[in-house]
Each structure stands twice: as structure tokens, then as C-alpha cells.
């Protein structure tokens, strides 16, 4: 009898923390059966690779919470990298980073303005922005990679503190900031309200337009942070890389408990989703599955995740 009760409680927990449960199971199985999986080196590698997607996923989370979507993230990463690379070779590290962050945020603001002031669906707006971002990257760079040889900057890409990649530490710091923002600031809290029911939120005095503008701007900014790290790692700005990064960020949010219909999703859940994808990626690599197959596997996983989230659609009033 008590055994059954325990089982019930376990099942309940799994139901509401499915991403974490999946992560734990996969982690245990992989540690047991996949050679070279369990070990500091591999863990560091996972953190190293997936911290970039982590920043994108946090931005995507904010947008998805308002029942929106940002398809422009991958091309904004490329755009940021080009802006950073070009500015760095002329003006030095800090103006370059500031310029990269500002440029990508600016495009995010434009998406946000269009989404909040017109009735054009967010996926169309950000699809248009995908073209604009990629195009600007190509124009500025003349479709060629722009190399960066400022060592202080490229070292930062690989830097670690006590064995942990700086990028992962930065991701944790930003996540904490975001956790505070969506929990303790009115504006942050209202992101959830807008996604839950736009009309009710408006009637309760929530500034819906401001909230929507904000999430796309923040998505632009967080994407740009990922883009800066990406540039440092590549030692160059690339106008054609980072394709489909938005797909992984969307997947991480959904796997982490977010709903495409808005109002549901958490920062911690999203991070779990990111790590889960990192572990999956690592396992696929370690068992020697070719990167080509990985695309298929990930695509199928994403479809499964979205299909599951459809089943989990938030309950409605009446």
C-alpha cells in the first residue's frame, strides 16, 4: 500500500518534471554504457558547447511565454558575429562587444515594435527578420568570414574558472538575473500574464505592448551575448554560420516545460532543456553517430517534444 503511494508520488513528480526526469535517466544510462561520457572533460565540453544555445533559449523562453516565437535567432548570431568582428579590427574589444550587443538588440526591438503594433503573426515578423539579419551580415562582410585576431578576446571564448567555462558561469549569472526579473519585477511577471490571456492582462492594467516589445528586445540582446561568445570561439565572424540555432532554442524551451500557446515555462526548466540537448548531443557524438544523422535525430526529438507539449496544453477557464 505504501509502496503504491510512493510509486504514485514518483509518477506525479515525473509528470511535472519530465525534462529533469529524462535528463537523469539519460545521464545514468549514458554514464553506465557510453564510454568516455562520465568524466570532467566531457561535462566541461557539454557546458562549453551548449552555453551559447543557453543564452538563445533564455531569450526564446521570454518570447514563447507571450505566445510568440523568435525565428531570427540563428541569423542574429551570425549578424552579431560580423558586427563584432568588423568593429573589433577597427576600434578594439569593448566598443566591438557593445556594438554587437546594440546592433542585435536593435533588430529585436524592430521585431518587437512590429509584433506589438500590428496584427502580423510573430513567426512571419521574425522570419522576415531572419532574412534581414542574415542579409545584413552578408552585406557587411561581403559574404566572406571576417577573422578576429585580438587574443584577449579569443582567449575569453575558451577561458575557464576552476575548470568551468566562463561562458557557462556567465549563463548562470544571467539566468539568476532573469529568475529575479520574472519573479520579482512587475514587468517581468507581466510576461506570464500576457501569455496566459492577453485580453485579461490588458483589462488588469498590464501594458501589453510594452511587454511584447521588451521580450523581443531581450531575445535580441541574449542572442547577441551568445553571438559574441560564438565569435570568440570561431576566431572570426561568419555570415553563413549558426543556421537553425533557433530550432534548438525553441526545443529546449518546450522540452523544459514551456508551451507554444504562452503563459507556461520557467527559466530553470529551460536550462534543464538546454542541458538535456547538450547531453543528447554528447551521447550521439560519443557513440559515433555522424553529425548528419544527428540533425535527423534532433529534428525528430523536437517534433516529439512539441507534440507532447500539445498534449500538456494549459487548462483554460470554462
Amino acid at each position, binding site marked *: 500500500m505504501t509502496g503504491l503511494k510512493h510509486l504514485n508520488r514518483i509518477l506525479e513528480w515525473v509528470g511535472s518534471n519530465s525534462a529533469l526526469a529524462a535528463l537523469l535517466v539519460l545521464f545514468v544510462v549514458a554514464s553506465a554504457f557510453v564510454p568516455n561520457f562520465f568524466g570532467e572533460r566531457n561535462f566541461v565540453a557539454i557546458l562549453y558547447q551548449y552555453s551559447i544555445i543557453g543564452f538563445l533559449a533564455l531569450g526564446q523562453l521570454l518570447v514563447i511565454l507571450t505566445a510568440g516565437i523568435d525565428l531570427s535567432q540563428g541569423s542574429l548570431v551570425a549578424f552579431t558575429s560580423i558586427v563584432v568582428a568588423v568593429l573589433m579590427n577597427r576600434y578594439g574589444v569593448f566598443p566591438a562587444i557593445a556594438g554587437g550587443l546594440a546592433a542585435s538588440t536593435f533588430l529585436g526591438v524592430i521585431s518587437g515594435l512590429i509584433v506589438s503594433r500590428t496584427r502580423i503573426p510573430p513567426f512571419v515578423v521574425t522570419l522576415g527578420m531572419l532574412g534581414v539579419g542574415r542579409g545584413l551580415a552578408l552585406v557587411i562582410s561581403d559574404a566572406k568570414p571576417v577573422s578576429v585576431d585580438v587574443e584577449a578576446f579569443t582567449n575569453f571564448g575558451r577561458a575557464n574558472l576552476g575548470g568551468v567555462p566562463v561562458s557557462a558561469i556567465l549563463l548562470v549569472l544571467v539566468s539568476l538575473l532573469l529568475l529575479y526579473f520574472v519573479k520579482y*519585477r512587475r514587468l517581468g*511577471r507581466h510576461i*506570464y500574464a500576457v501569455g496566459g490571456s492577453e485580453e*485579461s492582462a490588458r*483589462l488588469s*492594467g498590464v501594458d501589453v505592448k510594452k511587454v511584447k516589445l521588451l521580450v523581443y528586445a531581450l531575445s535580441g540582446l541574449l542572442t547577441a551575448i551568445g553571438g559574441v561568445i560564438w565569435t570568440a570561439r570561431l576566431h572570426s565572424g561568419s555570415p553563413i554560420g549558426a543556421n537553425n540555432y533557433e530550432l534548438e532554442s525553441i526545443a529546449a524551451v518546450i522540452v523544459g516545460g514551456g508551451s507554444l500557446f504562452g*503563459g507556461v515555462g520557467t527559466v530553470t526548466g529551460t536550462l534543464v532543456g538546454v542541458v538535456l540537448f547538450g547531453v543528447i548531443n554528447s551521447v550521439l557524438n560519443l557513440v559515433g553517430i555522424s553529425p548528419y544523422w544527428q540533425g535527423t535525430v534532433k529534428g525528430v526529438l523536437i517534433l516529439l517534444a512539441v507534440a507532447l507539449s500539445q498534449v500538456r496544453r*494549459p*487548462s483554460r477557464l*470554462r
Partner: protein
Amino acid sequence: METAAPVLSLKKISKSFSGITVLHDVDIDLYPGEVHGVVGENGAGKSTLIKIMSGAYQPDHGTIHYQGQLLKNITPRWARENGINTIYQEIDLIPSLTAAENIALGNEPLGKGGSIDWAAVRSQARRILDDMGAHLPIDVAVGNLKVAHQQMVAIAKALSLNSQVLILDEPTAVFTSSEIELLFNIIRRLKAQGIAILYISHHLDEIFQIGDRVTVLRDGYLVRSGLIAEFDKPSLVRAMVGREIDFSLRNGHSLLGEEILRVKNLSRSPVVEDINFVLRRGEIVGVAGLVGAGRTEMARLLVGADPLQHGEIYLNGRRIRPTSPMVALGLGIGMLPESRKEEGLVLQRSMAENMAYSLVQKSSRAGVVPWKSIRREVASLLSKLEVRPANPNLQVTYMSGGNQQKVVLGKLLAAKCDVLILDEPTRGVDVGARLEIYKLMYEMKTEGKAILMISSDLPEILTQADRILVMAKGRIVAEVPAAEASEEKILAFALRLESEMV
């Protein structure tokens, strides 16, 4: 009680929409600490009255005084923030947020450094709900609460805004009796706190139980108003009915033919329970009942729009299983849906196209459509229905309500349906088009078709139907031949007052 000044006072309020006056010189006063019941049939003007009070509509004539001040051009936002709150049937809450958060939303208490003070958010919610006497979990997403609890959260939210006037629109529509009792206890507490409450309900029992005053509206006119003690149920029903019925609209005599549709034990719990009836060729059977009685849900079962739980349907004596509207149309059973813009029409397409959809489906073989004969069919229907403007290529969105409704009717005619289920066939239709629709219904009847007409307009039911089924709580509670029917009698059945009235 009489000496206190009213907190909200409406004088000589009139409102019309595109030439049709829906409120005529209505006076109503709400006093602090009183429950003012408003009753009336569908279309009597109750919802317009609420919308004027809550700032959603501006009156054409008349004045509104609130706390002694004249109000002009107020917005819903202003009304909410200044103490006039409406709890609609569609509850305005955010399902994914907790009760405490919903109550605080937009006015979250802030603590140090402008951070939200969650302890204060929760204690505020607790306090308001305790004051109301409502006991419900405040840390659960409201989407997971019972409807009754959701409504309490909505009321608590209104109170957090320092509400002076609370408007409750059909609050008990989906409540169980214990939930109603819970709500009444809350209302009594609010009264004691000096809040004025406008209580709209079809359920006269509730008005007598909780009301201090009652106002009866009929066709946009205030018929009677007074202390509840001045009324009993029969007098209230008499005041509600008494509408002018133009019996010259009487839809001819019954032309009874053989049985065409027989329905046995039709059920889809909890909205439709054990429905039995027979429909004969050449008759119009009216289905009366209050909103939420299960009429539309029953109609949807008949055409296969929703899956049947159990029950049997016979067409011309043969058992049929309409598993989808496509199958039903193939069998000759068609429905005119309640909401023509959401379910009846593809607004951005042309009227000819809309009219032909069912016919195209029915007459095409392996995807090949006989366009020529379809075009001929539609052209002849267009002239028969006298749709205006008579441009078959016009997008439906640019047509008037009456002509749009004719297009939906035309769709059923084009598909050559023998059984027509018309759900509110004249809602939002002007008088001229209404008469034309009646004429069409009569023609169909003489052609030997059978019509099941759901209507919330009692005069319409009384003049058009040959036989009337009355539904309440998902069941057919009475069947009344047109000759023996009166508005009072039907309403008594629908309100389940038959024992007291007859």
C-alpha cells in the same frame, strides 16, 4: 434603506444599434448594501444595460450618476479602477497564474527596491477571500480550480480594487446547488460591507432568495421595478412575458406528413441527457429553453458535429449514424449554426461559393465537381432567396446580417436537406429579412421538409412552430402543441416553475 442615496443611478437611459432601439428610457438605482435583481427574457436589454454601466457602451440619451457625480464617456478601464466591476460569464482571469497572482495582477504590492512583495500578495489575497468567506487554495493555477472558485477569485479581484458596485451576469449558470449557496453567503457578506450588487439571472428562485429589489425589462422597456416583497413568482413571470405577439405572422397550419426523424435516448453527459422526440414531414418543431439548456449541443449531436455518447437516430425508419456533418449532409440532415460568423460562413469568400460548399461536397465524384449544374443551382437559389445585393461574387463579409443568414439557409437548400435544424435562425437579423426567413421556412414546410427550430425568442417560437419542445438542464421537460402554448407556460417550463405556475 429608502433614505440612503443610490451609489449608482441611471436615468432615462436609451441606446440603439443601427436604428434598432434596445433600451428605452430605463431608470435604475443601485443602493449600497442592496442586491438588485434584473430579470427579462433574452433580448430584453439586460446585457446592454450592463455594458453601459461598465463603460463598454455609451448611452445615446440619459445620465449616469456615480457616488453623486455625473459620469461622461467612461471606459471599462476607468470603471474597473473606480469601483464598478462586472463579473461576466466568461471569467476574466489568467488561467496559468495562481489565485493570489490574479487578484494582485496590475497592482502587485511592492517591497524593497521595487521588488514584488510576495508575502503581501498572498496575505492580501488571503485577507480578501477570508472577508468574503471563500475558502480556496490561493497557490494553485486558477485554470485548475472549479468554476465556482474561479468566479470567487474574480470577485476577490474586483474587491481588491475597492469595488463599490458589483455586477454579476448569470453567475450561477454552471453551478451546483451547494456552490450557489456558497456564492449567496459571499453576496450576503458583501451586502453587509455596503457594496451594491446588480444580479442578473434567469433563475427566479435565486432572485427571491438573495434580492432586495427587482427590475423587469421587456423589449428594452422597464416594465416594473420595486422591492422584492411586492412580487411573487407568477407576477414576476407575467411582467416578463406580456410581449406583443403579432399573430398575423402565424406560420399557417400544420401539414403533418409521415415521420421522418426519430431520436431515442440521445445523450452526451452532462450537457445532453436522454433526449427523445419525433419529427414529421411538413412541420416546424420549436425548441425553447434558457441559454445553457443544451439545445445547441443536442443539435450538434444530430448532425455529427460532436460524437454521440449513446442513443439512436432513425431517418425514415432506418437507423443512421451521422459521424460527421459530411455524413449527415449526405443523408439530408443539415444545420444552420447558432453563430453564423464563426460557424456558418467563410467571410472572406463569395456568397455563391459559400452557398455551394455543401452542394459541391455532395455532388462531386472522386473530386470532380459538376461546376455547370452547381452554378445553375446557385443562381436559381439566389433569385429565390432574394439575397441583396444580388452579386454572387460579393464577399460575404460585406453583406448585412439578414442577407448573410439567407446565404447560410441557401447552403442547406442547395444541399437538398430534408431535415433542417435551424439554431437561432433570426438572431441579429433585421425585421424585413426576418419575415423573409419565416416565409422561406413556410415554403420548406409545404414542400414536405421537416424543421427543428431552436430559438430564444419566444414570440418567434409561438408564431412559427407547430409543436414546441422545452429543454432545461439537458433534458426535454415538456412538449406543448402550438395551440395550447403561451409565453407564460413555456417560460414556466423552462424555468422549471411549472408546479407553482400551472
